[in-house]
């Protein structure tokens, strides 16, 4: 899948995972796609849920099998 922007948040923990993702999405237009690399555990459990609550759509989720996941988020995809 082609993304408009890529963000790696494996170097931060909650709530900076959400803060960085939120700000990255703000810089995109509705319909654009953010590729996000995040850690297993708390980030993958909570972040997709928070993004859905904010009206963004998770298009694809992949386990990278190295303790990280990659998700593709469509800005405003649920609004």
């Amino acid at each position, binding site marked *: 899948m082609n993304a408009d922007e890529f963000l790696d948040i494996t170097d931060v923990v909650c*709530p*900076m995972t*959400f*803060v*960085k993702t*939120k*700000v990255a999405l703000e810089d995109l237009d509705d319909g654009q796609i953010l590729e996000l690399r995040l850690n297993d555990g708390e980030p993958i459990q909570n972040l997709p849920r928070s993004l859905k609550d*904010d009206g963004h759509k998770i298009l694809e989720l992949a386990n990278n099998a190295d303790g990280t996941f990659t998700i593709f988020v469509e800005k405003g995809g649920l609004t």
Partner: protein
Amino acid sequence: MIKLTNEQLERYSRHIILSQVGGTGQKKILSSKVLIIGTGGLGSPAAMYLAAAGVGHIGLVDYDTVDLSNLQRQIIHQTCDVGRAKIESGRETINALNPDVQVHTYDEQVTAANIRDIIHDLDYDFIIDGTDNFPAKFLINDACVLMRKPFSHAGIIRFQGQTITYVPGESPCYRCVFNEPPPKDAVPTCRQAGVLGVMGGVIGTIQATEALKYILGVGELLTGYLLTYDALTMTFRKIRVPHNRRCKICGEQPTITELVDYEQPTCDFKR
């Protein structure tokens, strides 16, 4: 558009998480300009919270020096600051709190002659009245009405406080509610007055809240309402105040078209 640094993302993370703020709102705060007149009981907490919030430019107006008797409530100043100019002590506290903030100082008392220049200096977005006397309060109101600038009025005494927000064209002004400074003999002298130190914290923080809401364009401001607070009974009252058609400055036929300095009631109590 400015990009927030990693440090800023972390410093303001609890703001950015809020749906009403976000990175966009935080950038608005960082590029905003707030003028605080008086760095005393009200101005101290207002300045500190606005500095912590990342208001990009904070103007401080005060001509006074820090007195030992100020420290019971004027929390921007420390014991080691006694004798120093309040604006310098205020600047130091703000710089230590948040290097994102640029402090602009005005070492003077606001008067009809200088208040326009002070507000114009940076073309401040919002003004906070943290003064302790009626002449200054009416002057700030009149200047803000004539210059079409939003401001927050407040006053504290003993266990009581009040505050109201003015937005040009949208709300009644301070003079709509209070008309004229009270007669001299009705104003308590500083010997009689006294104030519980925390009053400035509660009311000054509400003033800072109004400034931030105005900058962000969120929520409902305290326009058209006077909020009163009685700490002894722990009662807040939000009193609806209408626009006064006969207001001398913002009414239908305003008689005040120039700024005037009212005489300050004298206080013979030696500090």
